[in-house]
């Protein structure tokens, strides 16, 4: 039976339920015409943590053209190497999330001496505005920034590193770089110098309006260098200095956590 209400009114009703997943799930069962709008909210944020998640996704949505991935606005990938390894096995499904505006990738605790490549996610969404990357020494700073430069509309950048930042000389600086007009959030237990160096090399310059940095006291000079690049645009500044003892304690605690939760043989 056709609905007595015009579709835009139905959409409005569903939009009011955006933060009530149970109600949205019930709406999905009402009529096929309700499914499209309901999925926009139900799959607005998707998180892949375990390899079973991506297999489950493929099982539930075997046809990429009908998959809600294109409606997803925010994607979070934890245990990145595990998820991308499984993703390759099921036909590269992560690339169907082509309309996301927020991306969080966590590659901490992986690599085992090998460097991790972020190539499978390069340019994933041309409309990406926010990128957060949690990494350790397993990804060279140049690789991180090549990845950053693959998102032309990026405004906000958050880089969180528990380990030292490994630098590889001879980075081929891309000809263009993102707008970077929003917030820069750096939390660097190993110091911010390599990251600031790469940021300074970006061809389009820096225009951050907000900078939030947690770093070591020794980073003051690098911090000044970074801020100077944004002196015309900087409106908000947040600084936190790590205490060296606390740095080693946190690194140890997180290291223990990661080694307890990740078993490479199962990956």
């Amino acid at each position, binding site marked *: 039976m056709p609905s007595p209400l015009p579709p835009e009114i139905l959409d409005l009703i569903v939009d009011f339920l955006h933060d009530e997943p149970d109600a949205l799930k019930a709406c999905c069962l009402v009529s096929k015409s309700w499914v499209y709008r309901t999925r926009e909210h139900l799959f607005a944020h998707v998180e892949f943590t375990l390899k079973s998640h991506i297999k489950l996704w493929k099982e539930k949505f075997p046809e990429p053209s009908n998959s809600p991935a294109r409606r997803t606005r925010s994607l979070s990938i934890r245990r990145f190497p595990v998820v991308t390894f499984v993703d390759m096995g099921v036909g590269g499904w992560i690339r169907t999330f082509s309309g996301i505006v927020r991306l969080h990738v966590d590659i901490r605790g992986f690599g085992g001496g090998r460097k991790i490549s972020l190539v499978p996610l390069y340019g994933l969404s041309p409309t990406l505005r926010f990128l957060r990357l949690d990494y350790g020494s397993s990804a060279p700073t140049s690789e991180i920034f090549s990845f950053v430069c693959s998102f032309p509309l990026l405004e906000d950048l958050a880089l969180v590193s528990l380990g030292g930042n490994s630098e590889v000389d001879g980075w081929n600086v891309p000809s263009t770089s993102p707008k970077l007009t929003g917030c820069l959030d750096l939390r660097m237990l190993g110091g911010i110098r390599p990251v600031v160096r790469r940021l300074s090399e970006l061809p389009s310059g820096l225009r951050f309006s907000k900078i*939030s940095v947690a770093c070591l006291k020794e980073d*003051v000079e690098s911090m000044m260098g970074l801020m100077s690049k944004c002196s015309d645009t*900087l*409106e908000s500044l947040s600084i*936190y200095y790590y205490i060296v003892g606390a740095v080693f304690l946190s690194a140890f605690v997180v290291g223990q956590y990661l080694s307890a939760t990740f078993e490479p043989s199962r990956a």
Partner: protein
Amino acid sequence: MPFLDLSKFTKLKDVVFGCTGPDIRRTTMTLQTAESINLEKITIRSPRKPILESAYREWQDLDRLLLQFWTSRSIRPRIGYKDREEGRELRYLVPRMLPELTSRGIVDLVEYN
């Protein structure tokens, strides 16, 4: 002691400092350089470690500086805390850390993450 020089940043509206005990002097020195006429908000995040007796003197230097910001530019300083428990502790600590501001009632405690 190296510290940030904020004198060049004329559009700065909002500054937040995460303070650990020994860093409070660095914060005071950095704030002394803030010349932006647009500055509206100064937030000091509460120290996570107990404050040593000797550090109270350094907090009092900050107290005087923040008072200057209030009298000359009407900037009301805020002390940020992470959770309720930290907030409760701060109610006892702030009068010792920032006596002048507390006695004039011009410091706000705010939850800050």
